[in-house]
């Protein structure tokens, strides 16, 4: 079956409006071919994150709501886009998400941003070894004095030897990606204990799991290309929509749909929105509509790049930091045998 990324790209090209349920994975909402919301079974929901942080949606300013919606949708996109369809998706024309009016995402921009996030993870710490295991602080800090950021602190004090990065994300009310990136950075700094290497030859890096349990523990490959997907496999339409709304979605990964230009996401409402700052300086909104146009040129190359060889890249120069236990060089004048010999020599000289 096809990857969800391919399905969404096809829906974008068809300018579909409605929701599409992806059994065992999540749900996507579109309006005129643009994604308005994504829900993933592998990442915490907007409400759950706010509740964990003692906030409510009603208490947010417009800019905060925009920020939270973008953060939630991108977190879900990191898991949804590359996942394979496990069952026929169900399309409900016209269905809207309660927060679907907040921001509109070009599918091509989502794909590009997920690829950027994956490469940032790999650059920060090119190993997936800590992504799915309990976060364990190092027994000793890497230096006499260390500086930690806010989220690093929260991760350290909530690490109970059981919770994985994905568990901590739920507990702390943070996107999984944010926690994963911070955990990788902490690993690079030597703040975390790395799992014991298996004895014998190292097994090759695992392929990303598709099961629900492990889905949240790693950022899957958003750059997968799709081969041999059968168009008729891809969607089952519920309700009045024509099947042609969701066809023609094979081989569309490298064709970013940039036709829908213009910034609708940030209509000038009473409160200030993040993009208003850009407009004040005579600028334009980048995310997501403008970015889609650039993805047309650059996104395909990014999307076609393979999975970085985790575990094979050199570590970031941390491994050689610790030397062996410090053995003080012996002072020969303290050695009783040397002292005795010196004493004998001195007595002969008398």
């Amino acid at each position: 079956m096809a990857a969800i990324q391919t399905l969404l790209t096809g829906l974008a090209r068809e300018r579909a409006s409605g929701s599409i349920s992806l059994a065992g994975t999540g749900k996507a909402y579109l309006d005129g071919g643009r994604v308005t919301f994504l829900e993933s079974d592998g990442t915490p929901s907007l409400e759950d994150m706010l509740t964990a942080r003692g906030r409510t949606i009603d208490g947010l300013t417009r800019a905060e709501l925009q920020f939270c919606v973008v953060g939630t949708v991108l977190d879900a996109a990191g898991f949804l886009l590359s996942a394979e369809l496990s069952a026929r998706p169900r399309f409900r024309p016209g269905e809207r998400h309660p927060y679907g009016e907040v921001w509109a995402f070009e599918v091509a921009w989502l794909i590009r941003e997920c690829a950027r996030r994956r490469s940032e993870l790999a650059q920060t710490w090119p190993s997936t070894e800590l992504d799915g295991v309990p976060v364990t602080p190092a027994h000793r800090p890497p230096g006499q004095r260390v500086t930690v950021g806010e989220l690093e602190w929260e991760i350290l004090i909530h690490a109970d030897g059981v919770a994985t990065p994905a568990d901590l994300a739920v507990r702390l009310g943070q996107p999984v990606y944010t926690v994963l990136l911070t955990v990788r950075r902490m690993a690079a700094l030597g703040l975390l204990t790395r799992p014991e290497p298996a004895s014998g030859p190292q097994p090759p890096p695992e392929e990303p799991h598709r099961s629900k349990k492990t889905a949240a523990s790693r950022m899957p490959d958003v750059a997968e290309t799709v081969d041999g997907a059968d168009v008729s496999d891809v969607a089952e339409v519920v309700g009045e929509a024509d099947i042609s709304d969701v066809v023609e979605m094979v081989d569309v990964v490298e064709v970013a749909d940039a036709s829908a230009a213009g910034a609708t996401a940030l209509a000038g409402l009473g409160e200030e929105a993040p993009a208003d700052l850009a407009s004040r300086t005579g600028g334009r909104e980048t995310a997501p509509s403008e970015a889609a146009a650039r993805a047309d040129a650059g996104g395909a190359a990014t999307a076609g790049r393979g999975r970085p060889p985790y575990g094979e890249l050199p570590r970031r120069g941390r491994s050689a930091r610790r030397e062996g236990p410090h053995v003080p060089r012996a002072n020969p004048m303290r050695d009783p045998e040397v002292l005795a010999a010196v004493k004998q020599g001195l007595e002969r000289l008398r």
Partner: protein
Amino acid sequence: MDIPGALDALVVDHLSGTVFAASGAADLEGSAPALRESLRATMDALAQSSPTGAARVEDLIVVTDVGYHLMRPVEMPFAGPLVFYVRLDLAQGDLTRARDSLREITGRMSG
């Protein structure tokens, strides 16, 4: 243009690196990682050099031979902070006005 002398502006999530908005002449989207890193390095250095060992940055201002760089991190409900960056022309820019303007905009954003 409400901020006189402004050349570029960028809004980026400090933790995730997602660019929310960008404008102006330069390819600011491409420079977002470097800006995040300079903010992180500054915060770390200030935390280590301050008597309390901690730092909460309100504005980061750098004056170069050709212009002003103004960066303001704003706390968000999760992740974040959301960083607002403005680059100003040295001759035409008004740092005080730009700073007031930025503070006024971001003040209406956080609850």
